[in-house]
């Protein structure tokens, strides 16, 4: 399946786009998604451990499953307020 990962702030600047298209096969979790993102965009590597993944506007855990119609976003440490 093909997933569009929304990118924000430093992640968007590093990738140079506000989405990253990732192709995944088989059962996919947040962990395998992060690995695929780093393979596509190696400059995300030093930061990927700090990024949280949101699935359908909720923070996901490492083993949250990602489905084809999930809305996925990469959330770097937040600094609002």
């Amino acid at each position, binding site marked *: 399946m093909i997933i569009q990962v*929304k990118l*924000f*702030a*430093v992640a968007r*600047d590093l990738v140079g786009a506000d989405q990253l298209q990732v192709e995944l096969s088989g059962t996919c979790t947040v962990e395998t998604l992060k690995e695929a993102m780093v393979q596509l965009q190696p400059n995300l590597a030093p*930061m990927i451990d*700090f990024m949280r993944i*949101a699935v359908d*506007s*909720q*923070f996901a855990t490492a083993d949250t499953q990602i489905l084809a119609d999930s809305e996925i*976003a990469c*959330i*770097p*440490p*937040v*600094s*609002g*307020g």
Partner: protein
Amino acid sequence: MVELTELPINVQAVSDSVVSGDSGAVVLFLGTTREFTRGRQTESLDYEAYPEMALKQLQQLEAEARERWPIDQCTIIHRLGHLELAEASIAVAIATPHRVDAFEAAQWIMDEVKQVVPIWKKENWADGTTQWVHPGMDTPPQK
């Protein structure tokens, strides 16, 4: 009530949105743009959000605060876009029958906002560089 806005935050309107004869206490918090951070000078800020999720998270924070404290009225507004010095990036207003609850709830909401609401600040430093602020993570200044 939670809101994201590109417009300046109107303090009087925020206050009016929570004051009523039901409450005895109102705590209004404003986060404002500070010129100096550890000696470095800020010229302006830009805030960006993942808006759908930010609104959901703010609504969840309001709901959880209402479970924890006897809140009559709650308004949380976050500004997005370009902010000059001294402008408010966030307003949190809580009205409760007794003041201790309003203080506690406003502090708790602010602590949570800084952890779980997908909004990001970019410093536009006076030296011409810009820098996304990602607490705990090194982000070098960019030209």
